[in-house]
């Protein structure tokens, strides 16, 4: 079956604009994760969903970041009033449950000018 998909693949935005990043997990996977990969900070956990609820939001860097998941499937990560330090690759992963292998999507490269 299809793997994890993310859209857009690349996003260039201006400082202060809002952006939405989308993740489609593997069908049937109940757990979904967002990570951020940047040169300075490496790979960081942002948020984890089990079904539609988020038991762990500890990695969200500020209140400008939010995420939701609907129907136990698609998830959207929203960054409001983007800043240059938000520039990074945002990776989404899903798994059948926890703990289990996490399958990653190809990521969205966000560039904030």
């Amino acid at each position, binding site marked *: 079956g299809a793997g994890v998909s993310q859209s857009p693949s690349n996003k260039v935005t201006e400082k202060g604009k809002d952006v939405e990043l989308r993740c489609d997990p593997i069908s049937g996977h109940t757990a979904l994760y967002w990570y951020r990969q940047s040169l300075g900070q490496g790979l960081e956990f942002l948020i984890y969903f089990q079904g539609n609820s988020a038991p762990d939001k500890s990695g969200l860097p500020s209140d400008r970041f939010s995420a939701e998941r609907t129907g136990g499937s698609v998830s959207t990560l929203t960054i409001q009033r983007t800043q240059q330090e938000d520039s990074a690759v945002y990776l989404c992963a899903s798994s059948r449950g926890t703990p289990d292998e996490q399958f990653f999507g190809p*990521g969205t490269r966000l560039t904030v000018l």
Partner: protein
Amino acid sequence: AQTVTQSQPEMSVQEAETVTLSCTYDTSESDYYLFWYKQPPSRQMILVIRQEAYKQQNATENRFSVNFQKAAKSFSLKISDSQLGDAAMYFCASLAGGTSYGKLTFGQGTILTVHP
């Protein structure tokens, strides 16, 4: 809290030779999992191998094997018969039990170059 450390920013190996990538970790959990992920230039993270902490036997997947030293909190990856397609960034990661079951904690990564 979990920490994962990869002390080798870059490694290189000749095609068909063997290379070992190092990883150390720290955790207060008794139940945890360890992983090696590969990230080629395409950005797609691919699971290479996993190890459950409660298993004493080292995991093996074809040319990839680990040396899991639980007391030393060490988890190295050995790649045998290296191939050009093995060139990538390799990340060591931990997944702990308790309330942290959701998230992977990654090391800084090791860039592996394979020379023909």
